[in-house]
């Protein structure tokens, strides 16, 4: 039967996915056509949402930017008359004119995302779902499983890059009457949505990954700690857990063995620091999410004081694939020390923002230009920001660096969880450093002095610089504070908080200096250092700018050249954005 799938991840829903889904249903009933209408997760091409895939006898046809009006025509032309509408297709049944977005990708974690209906356990089963856990229960010992994961070279995808097999080994060897497996789905980096897309698109694979970990370390209890801000992911996880429990895959004596495993969902309440293992554990225990000194590591003393293994969503998503395809298949991809693939959330000033999974070892340029299509609006590639508030900026000149934990760490940034925000020349690096520090300062739990107060002082200095009041000595002070914070903080939040400042200072020191010495913002972004002016030759006197000005700083009547009063102007940029003739400039 013909299948019609609508991409209903958060991105698709935000773009109007449910309207399209409902419209398809209406058209289906109205015209009495026989096709199966299905939900699916994120297909990755967030920049072309809403996406609708038609799967018929001739192949797979992917329609982009579908709205209510297009539904009608797609139903009439394609589904009724059998004539695909070429100009709306991004992927055709004939495999021609394909968007190169997918060509260089290798989908392991995303293998089922946008393919199966996440609400259907049967569709997951058709894709060999839950066969990896059955295989290990029937054929392997826990040691065998740990060996496979170790040999595969899988490293923690949450950002730290710790070898997963080793982590499992530690927890398996730790003594305890109870052990726990926790899935860290507290994806908090602003600009990252990989884990959410996996949970929304293929929740069963994460559950199965957790089951395999539980088998390997001897845990009977699991928790998924997921952000409350991800309602769709939580909903689909609950459905998936319900189905798996009903089938007897979760609970007592799973798959006819003597093994018990239960999973609970814990909704995070909004604290970035809870991405840190010990803070996350405190949060599950109902406390404030404040990290504690390690060792003892959670592998020895974790949740409720018991040995606990924590991995993130993407890490677990890799596990069933590795079990079924073998360690060697996984290790054949990537670089010497970074194996497999990495999922990236491409965003910012890039043409094709979306979700892409690439083999490790691909260069940043390949990701930005060949997958992401380059910079949007004709801008010039300036840098990528990787690792969010814990990471840093890698300048365009270093674009041939490989996606590899160690290579990226060398630049001063980190691999991070997969947020890749592309920047063009309109981004001020001082402002960006300030942006991230505002975030970490706000999210610092307050336990460690340097993180609590040091980030505050750094933020004040950055604020001063962006206001044009910076002094030469501020840069040294920023560096000194950075290293003190890194050295004297207990957890990853503090230890990495100065990274955005340090990397921008390293690669874009001249931008800081321009703010300080010349009182200029080279990117024309810092409000205090720019002035808005009307370009007389371009102004048509349409009055739009004046009408948009919140402080009446623009004078001029109809068909007269307008003028901005710099005394009154608050530099909110509303006139600049409103002008339809590019007649306002920033200088």
């Amino acid at each position, binding site marked *: 039967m013909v299948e019609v799938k609508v991409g209903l991840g*958060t*991105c698709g*829903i*935000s*773009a109007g996915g449910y309207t399209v889904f409902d419209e398809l249903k209406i058209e289906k009933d109205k015209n009495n056509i026989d096709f199966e209408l299905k939900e699916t997760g994120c297909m990755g091409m*967030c*920049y072309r*949402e809403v996406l609708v895939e038609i799967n018929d006898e001739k192949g797979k046809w992917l329609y982009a930017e579908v709205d209510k009006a297009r539904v009608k025509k797609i139903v009439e032309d394609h589904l009724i008359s059998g004539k695909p509408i070429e100009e709306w297709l991004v992927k055709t049944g004939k495999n021609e004119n394909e968007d190169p977005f997918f060509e260089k990708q290798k989908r392991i974690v995303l293998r089922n995302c946008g393919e199966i209906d996440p609400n259907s356990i049967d569709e997951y089963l058709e894709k060999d779902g839950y066969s990896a856990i059955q295989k290990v229960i029937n054929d392997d010992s826990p040691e065998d499983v740990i060996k496979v994961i170790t040999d595969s070279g899988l490293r923690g995808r949450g950002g730290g890059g710790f070898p997963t097999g080793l982590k499992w080994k530690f927890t398996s060897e730790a003594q305890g009457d109870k052990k726990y497996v926790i899935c860290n789905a507290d994806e*908090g*980096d*602003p*600009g*990252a*949505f990989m884990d*959410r897309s996996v949970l929304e698109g293929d929740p069963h694979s994460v559950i199965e990954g957790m089951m395999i970990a539980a088998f390997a370390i001897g845990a009977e209890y699991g928790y998924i700690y997921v952000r*409350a*801000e*991800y309602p769709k992911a939580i909903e689909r996880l609950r459905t998936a857990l319900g189905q798996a429990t009903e089938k007897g895959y979760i609970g007592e004596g799973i798959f006819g063995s003597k093994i018990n495993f239960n999973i609970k969902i*814990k*909704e*995070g*309440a*909004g*604290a*970035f620091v809870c991405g840190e293992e010990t803070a996350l554990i405190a*949060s*599950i*225990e*109902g*406390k*404030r*999410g404040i990290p504690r000194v390690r060792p003892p590591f959670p592998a020895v003393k974790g949740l*409720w004081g018991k040995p606990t293994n924590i991995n993130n969503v993407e890490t677990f998503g890799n596990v069933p694939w590795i079990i079924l395809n073998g360690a060697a298949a996984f290790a054949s991809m990537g670089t010497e020390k970074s194996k497999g693939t990495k999922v990236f*959330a491409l*965003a*910012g*000033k890039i043409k094709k*923002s*979306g979700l892409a999974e690439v083999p490790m070892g691909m260069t940043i340029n390949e990701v930005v230009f060949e997958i992401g299509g380059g910079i949007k609006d004709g801008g010039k590639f300036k840098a990528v*920001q990787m690792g*969010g508030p814990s990471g840093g900026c890698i300048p365009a000149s270093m674009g041939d660096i490989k996606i590899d934990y160690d290579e990226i760490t060398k630049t001063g940034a980190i691999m991070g969880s997969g*947020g890749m*925000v592309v*920047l063009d020349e*309109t*981004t001020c690096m001082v402002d*960006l450093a300030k*942006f*991230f520090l505002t*975030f970490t300062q706000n999210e610092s*739990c307050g336990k460690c002095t340097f993180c609590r107060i040091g980030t505050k002082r750094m933020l004040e200095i950055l604020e001063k610089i962006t206001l044009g009041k910076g002094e030469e000595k501020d840069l040294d002070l920023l560096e000194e504070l950075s290293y003190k914070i890194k050295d004297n903080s207990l957890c990853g939040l503090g230890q990495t908080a100065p990274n955005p400042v340090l990397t921008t200072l390293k690669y874009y020191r001249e931008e800081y200096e321009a703010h300080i010495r010349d009182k200029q913002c080279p990117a024309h972004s810092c409000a205090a250092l720019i002035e808005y002016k009307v370009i007389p030759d371009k102004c048509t006197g349409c009055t739009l700018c004046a009408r*948009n000005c*919140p402080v009446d700083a623009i004078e001029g009547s109809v068909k007269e050249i307008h003028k901005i009063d710099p005394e009154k102007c608050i530099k*909110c*940029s*509303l006139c*600049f*954005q*409103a002008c339809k003739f590019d007649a306002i400039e920033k200088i």
Partner: protein
Amino acid sequence: MGENLSKEINLNIKEFKIDLLKNGGDPGVLIPLLQSAQDSYGYVPEKVINYISEFAEIPAAEIYGVVTFYSQFRLKPLGKYIVKVCEGTACHVNGAKSIVNMLLNELGIGVGETSDDGMFSLLSVACLGCCSLAPVIMINEETFGSLTPDKVRKVLKKYRQK
């Protein structure tokens, strides 16, 4: 006082998951309790804190500690329309600042405040997770993407007329 308080609360609490309290001070129960309170009331009222404190035997000071630690919890009710402006990285580099400026200007309230008529609350969030649509705002459950300041004004106008 305990009994009266619990009666009074019970009358008001329909959705609030009292059954979570049955286990008394079961460790880990506090955050889900507060979440369900907020689901029912839209915020965490002071009397709920006292109630939980009494029945779950958790000191109120500790509950306030948790409530104020996590950004999800609010101690005050919000307006009819909750405007969340995304200030995530992707939105930031795509001009979120001018969107914030427009919202401040149009709503006449600061971030974290509620308008006097109770219509709008303006919140800033770190990432709504639909970065490809940046810059983005969310009003209650509806998302608006690829915004310009002018589009923001139009969207607000629509809500005012509702």
